[in-house]
């Protein structure tokens, strides 16, 4: 079912030309499909426990992780504009650095550094994506940022997947060995739910993407906002003066 969903999603991404609107998300979907087929091929030809399967699995995991991080960054970039993006991009860069540093430190302590690094980065990334999405949504609410319908669904899909992964990692960690198959299945199901969320809006043709009109040029907005700020300061001063005389 998972492969069918992945193929369906990929076909819809191509048919609806989503790669024009969300290129990094489309790349992520393409890599997920490629990863699935590459794994199946490797398992079939070299066996499930072969060294080739091991390298294929862990290297593709790394690639898909990077693609997922980039897809979330693309959503942030599309959602936030101007100075809000300037602030958000710094936070994103710090968070990405922290995730990588944490992964490297954990990997250095372990007997199998590469695998530990990827596992740590995967978990940190789930955590980091959740933090980023919370921050993105909070900023979106704060600055009335409006995003298109498809972007909203992509965001919802990532939110559902990350939430599930975090809860899963938290609860299943202690019993990971005992109920290992359940842990993996839950993770797979959460990704399938996310895929269904992404597929639903793609079943209908996407509304034509019209670039938002440039309502104010950069120079204009700087000079206007300077005037606005000046006025606001005057109003605040006036209000203070009135309050002092009135509320004495």
């Amino acid at each position, binding site marked *: 079912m998972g492969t069918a969903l992945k193929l369906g999603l990929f076909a819809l991404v191509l048919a609806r030309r989503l790669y024009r609107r969300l290129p990094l998300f489309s790349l992520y979907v393409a890599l997920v499909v490629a990863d699935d087929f590459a794994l199946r091929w490797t398992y079939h030809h070299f066996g499930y426990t072969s060294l080739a399967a091991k390298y294929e*699995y862990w290297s593709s995991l790394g690639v898909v992780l990077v693609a997922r991080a980039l897809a979330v960054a693309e959503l942030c970039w599309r959602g936030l504009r101007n100075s*809000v993006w300037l602030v958000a991009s710094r936070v994103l860069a710090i968070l990405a650095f922290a995730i990588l540093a944490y992964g490297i430190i954990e990997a250095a302590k372990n007997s*199998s550094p590469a695998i530990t690094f990827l596992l740590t980065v995967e*978990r940190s990334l789930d*955590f980091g994506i959740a933090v980023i999405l*919370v921050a993105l949504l909070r900023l979106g*609410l704060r*600055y009335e940022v409006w995003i298109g319908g498809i972007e909203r669904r992509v965001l919802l899909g990532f939110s559902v997947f990350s939430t599930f992964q975090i809860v899963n990692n938290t609860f299943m960690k202690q019993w990971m060995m005992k109920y290992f198959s359940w842990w993996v299945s839950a993770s797979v199901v959460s990704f399938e739910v996310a895929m269904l969320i992404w597929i639903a809006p793609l079943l209908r043709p996407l509304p034509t993407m019209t670039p938002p009109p440039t309502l104010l040029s950069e120079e204009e907005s700087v000079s206007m906002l300077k005037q606005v700020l000046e006025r606001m300061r005057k109003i605040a001063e006036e209000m203070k003066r009135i309050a002092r005389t009135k509320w004495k």
Partner: protein
Amino acid sequence: MRVNIYGRAWKPNSERFQGVGGTQPMLSLILAGALLYITFVYLKQQNARERRIETQRDLPREQLLPHHYTSFVEVENKLWAATAEGARTANWDTARIEFRNAELQLVRKNVQGLQEDFAIGNRIFAVVMGHSPEVKMLRQLEWQRIKIEFPYYVWHRLICFRLWMGQVSPRELRRLTEIVATLAYEVRSMLNVFERGGNVDFVDYLVRKC
């Protein structure tokens, strides 16, 4: 299906691995809950915005800007008239008066109107801030916004609490009205600046499409 458990079942690796979610389960759960909640709130806001744009298309501009706060004098007069003569003291402003249901309802309606005004003003303010091309400017605008937002929420909560207790303080009601009036004045002067600069389209976008 992605049956990619290879390597994860490798016991020594899995045993020693400590992820973020594993070391701080409480934090992870709070984060997961916050993420789901905020996603829901955001999607709700987006849908509400689409509905609002549809419904306010043909409304006159005055109705799309804060306007309820101007009815405070009328409300205060009605409260004054409804107050028993003995209770009309020199310190009317500072008094906490218990009213009948009809007057409480009137105050509730007034507070609701102020809430609507605040939502409109705050929304326009937010969109203007989102167009700020410099971080420094964004910070300054944000500071101006917080200076209005914080007292608004404090007074609003206090008045709602008093209403729940069946009391009204004219002084507190006036304070809240003044805060909303300040925001409304700031928003109007903001729109004037844009209009004077010939950006009528931007003003229309702020008032009708946000």
